[in-house]
């Protein structure tokens, strides 16, 4: 994709999303309830973390506030994914109702159409919560922070969101065969729970899974290690970019393959 085309999409995105928000805002109660629920969910997980650390001060060389940072990063990435890419949850419905036709007629990428057609405002609740938690942790840990690191942090969080999105899209595309792929999406959504903690606390198999197969480790654990000066290995600072790029490419290829199987509906 050329720079011109990317710019075109970047300009189009806010237009499409603002139209979709116009629709969402008309259900204001729903919006606040959703945002509240997502903050509450994250907080509950956080209380759990805090309860564990009252008993054990350190796990696998990770202190409480370092764990908190990982937790916060995962909340931000997940929240961004929820906020930007909520449309992927609609894929099954598009296919069942045959309304994917409408998206296929537009002169823009279908994956873009899918995620720009909806916005999960309540994901912002997660993002705000994650930011608060991360900043608290950074203050406590007194880690040296620079502009470069701040930029890396931003990029890493966007990469994290893209990784979640890619995995979500691959699961969503299963709907071309099974007509309802939400259960697969929920399964992988639950896998994302693992990246709330440093993946070194899990067994080797799970670590490999979260690094090379479903690369959720790059949404929080690896970049956090770099940001907190715990590791300077390339896997920590280059890993998120490579993982996001690979995941997105895989999702794109799979999506294209799946589109060829589309049967539309009626006559």
């Amino acid at each position, binding site marked *: 994709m050329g720079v011109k085309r990317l710019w075109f999409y970047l300009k189009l995105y806010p*237009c*499409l999303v603002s139209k979709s928000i116009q*629709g969402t805002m008309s259900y204001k109660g729903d919006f606040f309830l959703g945002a509240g629920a997502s903050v509450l969910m994250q907080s509950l997980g956080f209380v759990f973390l805090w309860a564990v650390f009252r008993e054990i001060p350190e796990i696998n060389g990770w202190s409480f506030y370092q764990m908190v940072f990982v937790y916060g990063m995962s909340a931000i990435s997940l929240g961004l994914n929820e906020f930007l890419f909520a449309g992927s949850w609609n894929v099954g419905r598009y296919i069942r109702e045959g309304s994917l*036709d409408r998206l296929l007629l537009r*002169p823009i990428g279908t994956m873009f159409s899918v995620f720009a057609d909806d916005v999960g405002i309540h994901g912002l609740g997660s993002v705000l919560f994650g930011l608060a938690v991360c900043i608290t942790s950074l203050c406590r840990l007194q880690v040296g922070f620079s502009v470069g690191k701040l930029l890396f942090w931003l990029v890493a969080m966007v990469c994290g969101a893209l990784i979640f999105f890619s995995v979500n899209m691959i699961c969503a595309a299963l709907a071309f065969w099974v007509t309802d792929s939400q259960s697969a999406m929920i399964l992988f959504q639950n896998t994302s729970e693992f990246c709330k903690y440093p993946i070194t606390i899990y067994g080797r198999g799970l670590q490999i899974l979260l690094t090379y197969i479903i690369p959720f480790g790059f949404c929080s654990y690896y970049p956090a290690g770099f940001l907190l000066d715990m590791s300077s290995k390339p896997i920590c600072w280059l890993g998120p970019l490579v993982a996001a790029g690979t995941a997105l490419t895989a999702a794109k290829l799979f999506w294209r393959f799946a589109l060829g199987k589309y049967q539309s509906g009626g006559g």
Partner: protein
Amino acid sequence: MVIEASGLAKDYVIHLKGKGLMGMAKSLLRSEKKVVHAVQDVNLNMEEGELVGYIGPNGAGKSTTIKMLSGILTPTKGSVRVCGIDPQKKRIQNAMNVGAVFGQKTQLWWDLPVRETFDLLRRMYNIPMERYKRNVDEFMDYLDIGAFAEQPVRQLSLGQRMRAEIAASLLHDPKVLFLDEPTIGLDVNVKVSMREFVKKINKERNVTILLTTHDLQDIEELAKRIVVINHGQVGFDGSMEELASKYADGKRSVSFTLQQDVPEITLPEKMAGHYTIEREGRQVKIRHDGHVNASDLIVALIQKYRLKDIDIRGPQIEDVVMEVYRS
């Protein structure tokens, strides 16, 4: 050629579900498949500026063909070129060249007012502002959209929505327009204005149009060329006149009432074998084929008999089409 489709085929795979709980459990393990040949071996070529009526009974494969031409569905077999482009391989490029209206499904944004929808399309298709304004003004004026342009699409009546749909499909000046049952469910007034608009677009902008419809009046008024599809195959491709002469035998008739009792009606020798007479007292109906001219027939009758309430009927398109669908 603007549209070139050859040997086009599309199969649908349907997974059959067993009946009842046991059947459902069984189909989970081993689902039975059924292949439906929605379109098989369709050849369709259209020149620039042509307006073709694409007709056929429900489930004949009309929409499936259009969906393959517009890049929505991937053909199982055969090749498609629209403006020289493969609609599947270069979907986005193809989308810039074509517009489509599906009578059964909306292309618009349900919650957005019509005017904002148009604006969103302008951005999507990168339409230059000047051209966009010219088109919007023209369409709004001609289709009388201004009256409801600020209302969200979900609040529009079907007639209003369809007018907005067709305008939306033409904003980016497509070279090809697919109209899939655009007049379905519309009242007579809206139908007439839709037809006028389609005619105008075809004529003034030289847009190539493929139109499917069940309303044969649409076809009579708009299409010079008709393609009939049945069971996924093209059964006829030609002009209205050819269609009529091929399938309209016995569909022409002259009816009248005799003013006096006549024992037997006789007609000139040269017409023999080309007509049948149905009679009930003084009420007479003569069915004839294309070899007999209705005016010659009437002249011959008037010379011999005194008639009144003469009613001449040409081939009715409904009858003709029914005949094609049956064959």
